């Protein structure tokens, strides 16, 4: 057995870096027992925290990068420890020493230079908008600014999602404009990777842009954008009203503004994205929308709502390599199939991307389709 001596200077540095509640952890291990890594390669969250409490070596190891920031541990922690913030703060400390994983460096570099983590050119950002009939945001004309995440600009699958958004908005008579290529990544994942400085720059840049254009209401398709605009930007001086596409659709349907006539004959199950569900407690809106689509047979998976299984793409994991079979999304597809679903619906471009990948890798293309709730609504529009 090793001999250890507490190193409280380190513990205090972690505390000051945003983990103020580090010391209230009473080591019950609800976190370890709740973490989705349990079925892959258990991640001992509790031990990480205890190492950090005593400033002992080991908290800064590889494990710290495995966390997907899914928030399962956080919402269950009996002591209310901000575990995700704690992990972020440790990553921040490590980041300062330059010891972050290689794959994340590329994402950070691209975000720094091009404003997106996908190594795509800035000038291509939001190019899809004009093709889909969106006009530049004008506060006198548009009810919402559509902030559509980086993905549709650089990823063909996500592009389909904004097509569906365009169709649904026009059917509901909701006017939304977009910003051009000067807009940058919302920065949610960047912050979780621990690059607080870069996050600050992104938030400041976007905040300025919102202010210049008089943006008051933002419509988002990604729960990650939702989360940071709603919960993190205000601290940095930008307060806008944020609506997620599923909320907008739920109220449009309730108000009779969307006429869903064409049956979508499918057994649909719904995957709660971590940042929509556990981080922001939006569980009902997407379900209400799915239930009002004619033809949809809705079933829940075993792990649903606040017990939902993370897709594995949060907290920077989108850009990190996870071995085949170890991705949470690989576990989710069989779970969906197991409840008889032929459509796995969700409401997040990251989740969609992860699931599409797993569907291919698991050779399940013929058995299940991955759909954003918005896409199913678009299908149901006559």
């Amino acid at each position, binding site marked *: 057995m090793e001999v250890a001596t507490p190193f409280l200077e380190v513990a205090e540095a972690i505390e000051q870096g945003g983990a103020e509640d580090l010391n209230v952890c*009473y*080591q*019950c*291990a*609800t*976190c*370890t*027992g*709740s973490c989705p890594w*349990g*079925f*892959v390669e*258990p991640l*001992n969250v*509790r*031990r990480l925290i205890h190492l950090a409490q005593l400033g002992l070596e080991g908290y800064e190891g590889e494990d710290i990068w495995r966390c997907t920031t899914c928030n399962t541990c956080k*919402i*269950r*922690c*009996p*002591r*209310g420890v901000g575990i995700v913030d704690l992990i972020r703060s440790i990553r921040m400390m490590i980041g300062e020493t330059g010891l972050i994983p290689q794959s994340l460096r590329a994402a950070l570099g691209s975000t720094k230079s091009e404003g997106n983590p996908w190594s795509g050119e800035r000038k291509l950002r939001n190019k899809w908008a004009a093709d889909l009939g969106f006009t530049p945001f004008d506060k006198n004309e548009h009810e919402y600014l559509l902030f559509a995440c980086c993905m549709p600009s650089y990823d063909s699958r996500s592009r389909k999602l904004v097509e569906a958004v365009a169709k649904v908005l026009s059917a509901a008579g909701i006017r939304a404009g977009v910003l051009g290529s000067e807009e940058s990544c919302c920065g949610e994942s960047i912050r979780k990777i621990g690059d607080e400085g870069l996050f600050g720059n992104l938030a400041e840049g976007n905040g300025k842009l919102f202010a210049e254009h008089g943006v008051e209401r933002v419509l988002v398709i990604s729960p990650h954008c939702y989360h940071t605009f709603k919960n993190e930007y205000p601290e940095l001086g930008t307060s806008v009203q944020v609506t997620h596409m599923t909320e907008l659709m739920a109220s449009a349907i309730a108000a009779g503004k969307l006429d869903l006539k064409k049956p979508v004959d499918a057994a649909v199950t719904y995957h709660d994205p971590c940042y929509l569900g556990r981080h922001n407690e939006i569980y009902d809106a997407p379900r209400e929308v799915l239930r009002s689509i004619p033809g949809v047979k809705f079933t829940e998976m*075993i*792990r649903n*709502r*606040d*017990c939902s*299984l993370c897709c594995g793409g949060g907290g920077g994991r989108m850009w990190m390599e996870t071995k085949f079979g170890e991705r949470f999304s*690989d*576990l989710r597809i*069989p*779970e969906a199939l*197991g409840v008889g679903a032929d459509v796995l619906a969700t409401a997040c471009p990251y989740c969609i991307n992860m699931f599409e990948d797993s569907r291919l890798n698991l050779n399940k293309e013929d058995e299940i389709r991955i759909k954003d709730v918005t896409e199913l609504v678009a299908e149901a529009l006559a």
Partner: protein
Amino acid sequence: MPKKIGVYICHCGSNIAGTVDVEAVAEFAKGLGGVTLAKDYKFMCSDPGQDMLKEDIRSSGLDGVVIAACSPLMHELTFRKAALEAGLNPFLVQIANIREQCSWVTEDRALATQKAKALVAGAVARALSHEPLEMRRVEVQPSALIVGGGIAGIQAALDLADAGVQVYMVEREPTIGGHMAMFDKTFPTLDCSACILTPKMTAVGSHPNIQLMAYSEVEEVSGYIGNFRVKVRRKAAYVDHDKCTGCGLCMEKCPYKVDSEFDQGLSKRRAIYVPFPQAVPNKPVIDRDACAYFKKGKCRVCEKVCEPGAIDFEQQDSIEEIETGAIIVSTGFQAMDMTAMPQLGYGKHAEVYSALEFERLNNAAGPTLGKIVTKDGREPTSVAILHCTGSRDENYHRYCSRVCCMYALKYAHLIKEKIPEAAVYQFYIDMRCFGKGYEEFYQRLQEEGVRFIRGKAAQVWSGKEYRAIATDDTGLEVDDAQLVVQAEDTLLGKLVRVPVDMIVLTPAFEARDDAEQVGKAFLLNRGADGFFLEQHPKLAPVSTTNDGVFIAGGCQGPKDIPDTVAQGSAAASKALSLITRREIEIEANTAYIDEELCSGCKNCLDICPYNAIDFDDEKNRAVLNEALCKACGTCAATCPSGAIRARHFADDQIFAEIEGVMSI
């Protein structure tokens, strides 16, 4: 005639003198108008200190005294008493707090001395404006009301009744007994709960000094210490209990069944029922919501079979009025609803039980006659008991429920006793076995082979669910009927999954849903945890801020049976010491309403937290009930006509003090 004020500056050892120049303050006081003498002294509260005070009052004919010392909460009463003994009205004593509000919170000696002078100047100015007030005496009704007939209330009732006090016991349910009646064994002695409880229940039922009002609720409380008036709603039982012989034929013949509350839904009872065979009173009531006659207008089978003709469908609720000197609130607790933690599968998986369900399952008089079996009749080969479900948890209840560790051990023992080969697991965070014989019981259970896993259970899945989602291959075989518990064993640093046949949760012990309402009726404060608040956590544990109202048992906070019974007895003794006084003194510094100035606006009526103000419609004036007034001064501050004067805290008196403080 000019007043003669004596001023005394206490050193309090070095507590005050260490920071304040007490001699300088005394010297300063001598120069204040109205001051006849000023002294400093080492300990004013000591006998020689008090003697000096008394001597001065007598020899110098003082008609006001200022003591500059500690907080009035500490020794105001001491000095008032000394003054009274020397013939000075106790309300002419004024305290200047130069310890808590000065020497303890000021570092600089010069500043502290300056501040002490200001406080003394204020106190002298106030003492000059004080008037003598008379304490009032009221009679005490020689009876006590006990609200809630669980073990706390039962104990209190018997203690008081045995002392000759007339006791009224109001119980909401058709029987007394509370939670304890549901238990099989009690920890750590393992005596049979019913065997020790039912004799006490019977004693309550038959005691000549106890009037038991079961199936009744307190509707309204008015009055004040020694003289409460309480309205009790006696719910219609639809059975004339004077005629009923308790033969039970009606319950046998009633064709309609609903879930038994007493058995936690694990068995059925009839629409006409007594909750359990040893109920006190042992007379049935008809549950309107379950009765076919009340619902559909047809049936009346009970009426047909009842020989003495006790069934009375026309019976109505009635209101009874009680006058009582003291009230003991012992309304108990409730167990948290475990569906709030969906990850534990309660309400979803048949074999996940709450603690009370398990109590009934295990009870010899319960639905399975004490056989521990699954809902489909199998004897479990393994059981997991999950600690701290909802307790010590920011998301639900921050506090520790204090009893779960111990009854979890008790369950383990009972399972082992009945099914020796069964594996029993305790998933715990910390074992809290602090009571007499508790640690020994823990050790005994370890000797009995119970397995302890240190880690809070994080997830529960059914075998079927587990097989569908467990994608890692740990070699764990689980069948459909089993459950899997997942936790980290923190002592191993390993994730553990344990397949079991049955799971028992330990729901947090929480304040009843209606605690707020009950608290309002009896003017009880509640803590952040929702439980009723005692007057002082250490020194007045069963008293409340509402004089004459005491609390006992689970309504005050989580506690086990020994502590509950101790509180029951404690509350009884507090009530007794009140009642046997026959007469009590009450606050003299009440408010006073000047009828001439009152405009009848009624603003004061709602604002008084003690309901001490009534309205005289004929005169169109507010009327103060001095016995109820707690001298909080709220009404005086509210009255737009300036008609209410708060005696001892009147505007002119307070302004005099402020001016005194500001004068230096």
